[in-house]
């Protein structure tokens, strides 16, 4: 067998991992990316691909408790591991506070970056439970959003921090801000 043929017909290797609490086993090409394993083998299409250079962060998932860009991890590297994707974040029919924050604070528009953004924000709050605005903006540097201009994403993370800490610095009644603003502006 020549080298060329060896490359053209790569061997498949077994992988098994626990994703969102369910055990999966499959045979995959060694080059298969984790994001493609999740999307194509398991049908978990909530994890998105927005670039090919690990800039955009749309593909962020938890692997063994660490947030990773699943476009930059091979499925075989996750062998034996535990993965949580956006589909696994809500518990017992309740949104995670970060998901809720994005909804409350209009932290998304088209929603394409949102799964990765929520996962990164979730990981940020695990590291820093009550982050400053600067820490939030810095902590989300690995995730790009083209729609929101980030301000409401910051608010969403602050909301989640407030919920998780049983209060925090954020006023959950903040949604009324927009209406108050408008009320003062309807001046003609």
């Amino acid at each position: 067998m020549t080298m060329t043929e060896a490359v053209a017909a790569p061997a498949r290797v077994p992988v098994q991992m626990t994703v969102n609490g369910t055990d999966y086993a499959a045979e995959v090409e060694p080059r298969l990316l984790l994001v493609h394993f999740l999307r194509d083998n398991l049908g978990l299409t909530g994890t998105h691909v927005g670039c090919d250079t690990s800039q955009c962060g749309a593909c962020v998932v938890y692997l063994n408790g660490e947030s990773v860009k699943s476009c930059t991890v091979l499925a075989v590297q996750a062998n034996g591991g535990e993965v949580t994707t956006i589909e696994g974040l809500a518990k017992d029919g309740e949104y995670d506070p970060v998901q809720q924050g994005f909804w409350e604070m209009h932290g998304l528009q088209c929603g394409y970056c949102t799964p990765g953004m929520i996962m990164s924000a979730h990981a940020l709050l695990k590291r820093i439970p009550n982050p400053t605005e600067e820490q939030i903006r810095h902590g989300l540097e690995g995730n790009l959003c083209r729609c929101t201009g980030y301000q409401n994403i910051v608010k969403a993370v602050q909301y989640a921090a407030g919920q998780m800490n049983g209060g925090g610095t954020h006023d959950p009644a903040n949604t009324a801000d927009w209406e108050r603003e408008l009320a003062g502006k309807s001046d003609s």
Partner: protein
Amino acid sequence: MTATVDAPERLVGKAIKRREDPRLITGAGSFLDDVRLPGMAHAAVLRSPYAHARIRGIDVSRALAMPGVLGVFTGEDVKDDINPLPCAWQAGKVQNNVNTPRVLALEKVMQVGDPVAVVVAESRYQAEDALDAIEVDYEELPVVVDAKKATEPGAPQLHDNAPNNVVMEWSCGKDAATVDQALADADVRVSQHIVNQRLIASAMEPRGSIGRYDPGTGEYTLWATSQAPHVHRLLLGAFILGVPEQTIRVIAPNVGGGFGSKIFMYFDMPLVLWLSKKLGRPVKFFEDRTENYLHTAQGRDHITDVEVGATKDGKITALKVKTWANLGGYLSTVAPGIPTTLYGRMVAGCYKIPNIHVDVTGVYTNTAMVDAYRGAGRPEAAYLIERVCDLVAGATGLDPAEIRRRNFIQPGDFPYDTGIGMLPYDSGDYERALNHALDLVGYQDLRAEQDKRRQNGSDKLLGVGMSSYVEVCGIAPSKWIGLPGEGWGAGLWESANVRVHLTGKVVVTTGSLPHGQGHETTFAQLTADQLGVPYDDIEVKHSDTLGTPFGFGSYGSRSLAVGGTAIYKSVEKVKEKAKLLAAHMLEAAPEDIVYENGKAFVKGSPEQGKTIQDLALAAHVGYDLPEGMEPTLEATTFYDPPNCTFPFGTHVCVVEVDRNTGEVDVLRYLAVDDVGNVINPMIVDGQLHGGIAQGLAQALYEGAVYNDIGELVTGTMNEYAIPKADMVPNYELDRTVTPTPVNPMGAKGAGEAGTIAATPAVVNAVVDAVTHLGIRHLDMPLTPERVWRSLQGASA
């Protein structure tokens, strides 16, 4: 109002959380790449590594033998079945030299990234493997990427029918001689060379399409990342594939941002349909980010020489503009309309300028096609005129705010015709927005602080920039936009159907569609209030040509102003029919029936009335209808507005420029926008946030850069600097509300305002910070290096 009818809570004006979000925050939103069809195969595209080359030959034999490969096709294989893509908006007499792309290049490639061959395989991985096995023999040709250089003698020629690479020579306003005379007569005269750099839309979801041909019915289904499914169907059927339009169905799944780039017809749309028919399998193509940056249509890219004349007291008397607009290697779907109708005719901005002449030369170059990108022509116009205002301020020694005040169109002037061929501006109070913005930002204090720092010789240079913008939204009136040669030879009306089902549930179908703007929420709010039915009983359907009336799609901030009005009018028709039916059921005269809060009743007797749900049931069972009344309760409207709408406002940016490093720190960004009446303020503010971020990013960070051999140097998100969370400020927003008389909701449109306003506000702020050092203008993006170099020059 009669007190005995329970008035439901009004939803218009409320910041209702979006009903779209639950699916999107849980990973359940279905985007193009999430669609999986039984038997679906995957396409990968071989793209040209050269910006300009002749294809001498292509050998696909090795690729065909690769594992999993179902087929490999080149331009020769498809040329008889798939026509070149159409250019729909041939503004400015471009008819004689239209060059549009073929789906796969035939003899020549015109840009890096031009599709040359397609592989279809069982998996994307296998398809991409096979690309490496295709051999193409190219003969390299000379390259030109700069629009102005492309028109000069000796430049490489791209197309035989376009001498000097000129797409069109277009002009508007008074004749050049008159404006030259006005310039000669002016007290103050300034000229400036201004570059509005090329941008990449960078929607987070790249583009793609899935084609499925059904041999049993002969029907094609296309799933596409589309801002305009009906238009795509029309162009595919009538122009590109030559198959009956009604045999094609186009579906846009959840679309992950567009910003204009998903309006256009792209090569992969007809190609996947053709491939599916050829191979008997559904075929998916989904760009990777590099392909998106190389080949999906880009924006801006103007080179402009502007000359302005003014009186000593700052009244602008003459404006002469010469712009070279780079349109890329071929014409994209509406490309020629952007630098002409949507740019040239908007250069007056908010100002009364008696003498304007605009020349625009559209140019072919060996670069990606340029078409509408968020704002589309209007950001280029606003940038130009707002820089001009500051140049006049510099030349006259007057405050930039004062220049604007002295030239504003006044509230009593509307409808106002700027004299350069735009439709009359509908309504506005420009000075109120300006004054309000300056009050909020503390303008006088900032000027005092700036003076102090300058006197102290501080290294932190303070700059305050403003832009008072006006833009044209709700792009529609067909009598204007449909005019061949000026418009695009088709209407731009919009459609809606409102149907009250037998059960009382309401389905609104619209020809417009969202790609992040929250149509499902906003349109349901609007319908709930107007029809008096519970919000949760209303469903908004869109994005599928099967089941929605023909519509032109979403762009140009037109969904609410045009599409929303179609819904409004459909609801009115439903209510009229409901009243007639109620009159029959209540044995009353139709003229005595009033409709309020979901109930039709004889004036003064609301307790005896019929609810809309009662009436829907009666209309559907249909056994007791007035003579001549058709069953069911629904109405369709095709709405063609009498005018566009013209949102406006003033944005103010405060920056600190580090004299030693050239770094720009945005200290504050404050915006006062007037988008007319607002349905959902949370959504409108979100649109403004995102728009401002994109406009600010043009000023400070972004720019698509080609090298001299036509390679896109900024070909990934590593090099093209779309902003991250820590690269943008908090936005302070406020509004004035000047309802438009154009539509019954008084809503103007908000999708593009932020982008249009922000770029000049930021650049004006940076230039303001350094203007006392003799710097009059800086070209974007204002990177630390560029600012630092300019400061070095100024210090020397």
